[in-house]
């Protein structure tokens, strides 16, 4: 009974405990509305990239190019902005570039039955090279029009626009995955590919859709990151890759039994974001932050595993 409860809500309880702990240790700086909004803006990129990873994981595959896609998206959006393209179009085209790349990855993997691990790793490497070629290795920041960073820095009724965009993305992806036939097919393929195929699902198409969606989200995140920084670094999104999978794996331990799910991923990203924010506020050295974050991920996955063992 307790183990089942722990398995289902353990990660959520851990998140609450972490937040409560930081609030007790830093009642003024950490436990404030301002800081909560701060965290919501800081984790925006992680949440969307982790959501991208979750979609592909739901189809039973991995997309290791999400970090490189984010870097490319940022550079594409910033360079278009410099060339005077309307800002909304910059974001849309960056997203489209990601969608196209995801589509190519998906088609390669499903048509030639390639391993997604290797294929997306290679695609990521290609993208890294392309991004360097596009920028000559330099940060894109000169002549960026003031409208470009506006979204990344805007607030609506005191809430960062980035946080609202992230929320909209999560709800949209959650709805797509759980309430529409294409989304349910993605889960079916991820759950049992053979059974899905026998049931008449075009598994290749569902997987390709997942990769395309992942590409779109990752590249769009890069554009948002560039908007927030008012500049695009050729490796700007690369750092999101590992935390995104950490968030997605943490998310699998929340709500649903070992199944990638969007709201679980959100909880995972919140844990990672709150740890980084709280430990910085408490002036914990960076190396210790890494140790603590890694240990918490291991702990969460172990608790979930223990629960599963008890059930078996």
């Amino acid at each position, binding site marked *: 009974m307790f183990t089942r409860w722990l398995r289902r809500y353990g990660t959520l309880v851990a998140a609450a405990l972490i937040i409560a702990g930081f609030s007790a240790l830093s009642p003024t*700086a950490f436990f404030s509305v301002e800081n909560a909004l701060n965290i919501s803006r800081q984790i925006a990129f992680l949440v969307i990239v982790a959501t991208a990873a979750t979609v592909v994981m739901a189809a039973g595959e991995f997309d290791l190019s999400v970090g490189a896609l984010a870097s490319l998206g940022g550079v594409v959006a910033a360079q278009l902005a410099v060339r005077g393209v309307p800002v909304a179009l910059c974001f849309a085209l960056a997203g489209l570039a990601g969608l196209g790349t995801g589509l190519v990855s998906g088609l390669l993997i499903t048509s030639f039955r390639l391993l997604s691990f290797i294929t997306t790793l290679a695609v990521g490497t290609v993208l890294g090279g392309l991004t360097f070629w596009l920028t000559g290795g330099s940060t894109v920041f000169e002549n960026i029009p003031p409208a470009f960073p506006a979204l990344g820095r805007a607030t609506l009724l005191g809430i960062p626009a980035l946080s609202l965009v992230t929320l909209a993305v999560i709800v949209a992806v959650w709805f797509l995955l759980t309430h529409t036939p294409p989304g349910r097919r993605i889960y079916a393929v991820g759950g049992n590919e053979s059974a899905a195929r026998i049931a008449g699902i075009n598994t290749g198409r569902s997987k390709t859709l997942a990769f395309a969606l992942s590409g779109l989200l990752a590249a769009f995140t890069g554009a948002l990151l560039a908007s927030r920084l*008012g500049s695009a670094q*050729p490796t700007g999104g690369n*750092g999101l890759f590992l935390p995104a999978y950490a968030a997605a794996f943490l998310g699998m331990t929340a709500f649903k039994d070992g199944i990638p799910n969007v709201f679980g991923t959100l909880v995972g990203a919140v844990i990672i974001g709150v740890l980084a*924010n709280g430990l910085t506020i408490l002036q914990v050295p960076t190396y210790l932050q890494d140790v603590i974050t890694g240990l918490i991920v291991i702990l969460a996955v172990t608790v979930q595993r223990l629960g599963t063992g008890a059930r078996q």
Partner: protein
Amino acid sequence: MPNRRARHLTAALTLSLLLPSALAADPKTVAILTPFQQSVTTNAMIASLQDQAKQRGWKTNVVDTKGDMGQLASRMEDVISSKVSAIVIVSTDPNPLKTQIQSANAAKIPVFGLDSGYIPGMAMNATSDNAAMGKSITNLLFKAMNGKGNLVVLTYRPHPGVLKRTQALDAALKNYPGIHVVTEQQVQVPGPIENSRQQMENILLANPGKGAITAVWTGWDEPAIGAAQAIQAAGRTGIKVTGIDGTSQATDMIQKGSPIIATLKQNFPQMAVLVAQQIDRVFKGQPVIATELYAPASLVTRKP
């Protein structure tokens, strides 16, 4: 009775712990943020700054984001929330941090740059004159090449300081039509020595003939070290390498007759001293001396 004694003892202990901190003035806290703490030079600057802070009784808090600019912006917001007394950004372009610098200004927290570049909103930045260093090491190398030959460039343009040096090379190349750039490679950071060594091994394999490569220009010392190691391992002679930074490893290799012929010794500890002096002034309510302060660099070549 033992209970009361224990209570007294606890009270005395608590008081003795609390009293000194209650009597001492609230120490100033300086947050030091960088995406490149792994770099030897960045590390040296941070160590020097921490030393300066210690001498003045300030607390320091070092945050490293391993090359991630988005994280750097987030962590800067966190230290602003924790109401530190001053922020120092080390070895990073301040442009992506514009919003955070504005937030720091709003919170009345001064932002200093250590080898970072200066933008409005910051108190000041201390660095070496990267353009001047790029120019002087390039001139030295081009003279050593007698104004002609095949040049390999190992650099990292995303770093603002290295970019300025590389731009000085770009400018000098226009005046030397006899010097042909075989290839320019961006060195991976972190891990620049190993990466530049591998890159140089491949470049040497691709250009096997004698004189196919005359010299290697590198943006800082770590790629120079990697390139020199590759050249020595391949048994190639006559290829000249230059670095910039004057790290102890590169200086040692110059003296031992490795392919590295020269480096410029940046005075990193002095940069941190300059920043600490300006932080001190700001803490005392005085204005900074200047928004850009330069620590002079000195040339290191093989001693006869």
